[in-house]
């Protein structure tokens, strides 16, 4: 089987397994997996910036929250229909990423991390400051009437799972196509050696900005979907924690792999879920995972597997 065929088989197979899983999973786990699929879309977006283009951002919570509020606010204040609201969330995430990128991409490395962190922090504080318009700390509930698409009530288990799966599958196939496209090759080239890439005729700023906007679109639609599927929009989703989570998922699953973000999200989610049965030390699990990964497995699970043999893994 050719590398391309193997990779299609793997990714379509994952989608098929997730589709079949909804019929076997108990309700509790079905909700978990829906959550994981949406968070995996967020992490995939993070991976496009970090894993493929080498942009280590600490500000992706801003784009996630932009998507969430971009979806939620028009419903809350203008009574928009769900589909236009989701599109507004998608656009908000991409637009904010573009805006931040225009400034932050003048820096690199550690400065880039801090600048993105600061913009995200300013965004979070702005949500609190404008509490009369945003619901502030408490956030708001998404109107249940606005959570029905084509007769499917997304607040119920089966439609919610399907909606999450459709979003996840679409996002993953686009990601797969992107990283195998000529532009995907240029993103990786930028990560590997920016100066060399410039001497091959690529404008580093434009390539990185494009990658960041794509990443922001992913984060935006993930935030919008999260708010819509689980019915709540709140400022907690703009905190630094939600910038760290996708980074953690990507590091765990394997930066620069298409399935890595999903694998990371799945494992991390259940790691916390299972350990929280024994201990409340949720923060410790996250912290220890970060330290252990960066010390012993900086390439993550799939990155290591790819290095050891499965070279065709995209």
């Amino acid at each position, binding site marked *: 089987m050719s590398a391309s065929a193997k990779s299609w088989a793997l990714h379509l197979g994952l989608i098929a397994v997730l589709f079949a899983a909804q019929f076997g999973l108990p309700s509790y786990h079905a909700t978990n997996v829906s959550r994981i699929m949406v968070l995996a879309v967020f992490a995939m977006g993070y991976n496009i910036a970090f894993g493929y283009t080498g942009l280590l951002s600490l500000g992706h919570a801003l784009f996630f929250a932009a998507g969430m509020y971009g979806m939620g606010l028009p419903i809350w204040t203008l009574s928009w229909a769900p589909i236009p609201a989701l599109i507004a969330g998608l656009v908000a995430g991409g637009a904010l990423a573009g805006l931040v990128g225009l400034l932050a991409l003048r820096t690199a490395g550690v400065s880039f991390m801090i600048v993105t962190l600061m913009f995200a922090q300013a965004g979070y504080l702005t949500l609190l400051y404008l509490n009369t318009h945003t619901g502030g700390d408490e956030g708001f509930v998404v109107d249940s009437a606005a959570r029905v698409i084509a007769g499917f009530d997304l607040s119920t288990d089966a439609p919610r799972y399907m909606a999450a799966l459709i979003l996840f599958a679409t996002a993953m196939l686009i990601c797969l196509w992107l990283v195998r496209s*000529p532009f995907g*090759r240029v993103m990786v080239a930028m990560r*590997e050696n920016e100066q060399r890439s410039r*001497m091959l005729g690529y404008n580093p700023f434009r390539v990185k900005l494009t990658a960041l906007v794509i990443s922001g679109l992913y984060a935006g639609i993930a935030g919008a979907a999260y708010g819509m599927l689980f019915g709540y929009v709140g400022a907690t989703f703009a905190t630094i924690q939600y910038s760290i989570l996708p980074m953690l998922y990507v590091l765990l699953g394997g930066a620069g792999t298409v399935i890595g973000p999903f694998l990371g999200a799945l494992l991390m989610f259940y790691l916390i879920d299972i350990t929280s049965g024994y201990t409340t030390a949720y923060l410790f699990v996250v912290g220890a995972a970060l330290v252990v990964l960066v010390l012993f497995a900086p390439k993550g699970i799939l990155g290591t597997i790819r290095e050891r043999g499965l070279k065709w893994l995209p």
Partner: protein
Amino acid sequence: MAALMQALGLTRHFGGIRAVDGVNFRLEPGEIHAIIGPNGAGKTTFVSLLSGRIPVQSGSITLGGEDITRLAAHVRVKKGIAYTFQITSVYPKLSVFDNVALAAQSAGARDLGGQVAAALARVNLAGLEDHLAGNLSYGHQRLLEVAMGLALKPRILILDEPTQGLAAGEIEGFKALVRSLVPETTVMLIEHNMEVVMDLATQITVLNFGQVLATGTPDQIRANPDVQSAYLGGHDAEG
């Protein structure tokens, strides 16, 4: 005949050091133009100014009559000036195919696979597409670097110390390769190996202390007393 590329009064100082100091330079289409000079004469800085890797302090550069003095490096690449690095600078973690494909797609290749194969064949690296560039031998990495330059389909190919570290047999192959490029591509060559220079170049410019010491054909340069003294002086100082 109009020059393909022309530099007038090109200058770049680093602190107090005049790396390139008022250089006038003409590159005619189809020539193989070698830039030579003792160590520290400003050769690499000079071609870096031409390719845009280092910004110009004063002076001007035109390409086919168009002023490109202030254009960013990646824009100049698009306009047909390709630069291959002195220190091998391929992407070690990417495959040979991806390395060359990056160059070919930048030049707008339609048939990526075909273009990559053609560029690799010209430097005798055909069949190595799936190898990681970092696993190639040093000589092969130098050739890959040249293949990337070729895949850009440049009007001007600037080769910075291309034969450094190549074995004698590889140098012969390399000379044949460069000869096969002209006149479609104009070649600029920074080179220490005088046999290669005298054998290949149709035109030579000698730099010394950031200034042009002489320009001419290999025979003229060989006969030039200034060049002889600069080189002999240089060797005395080094030895």
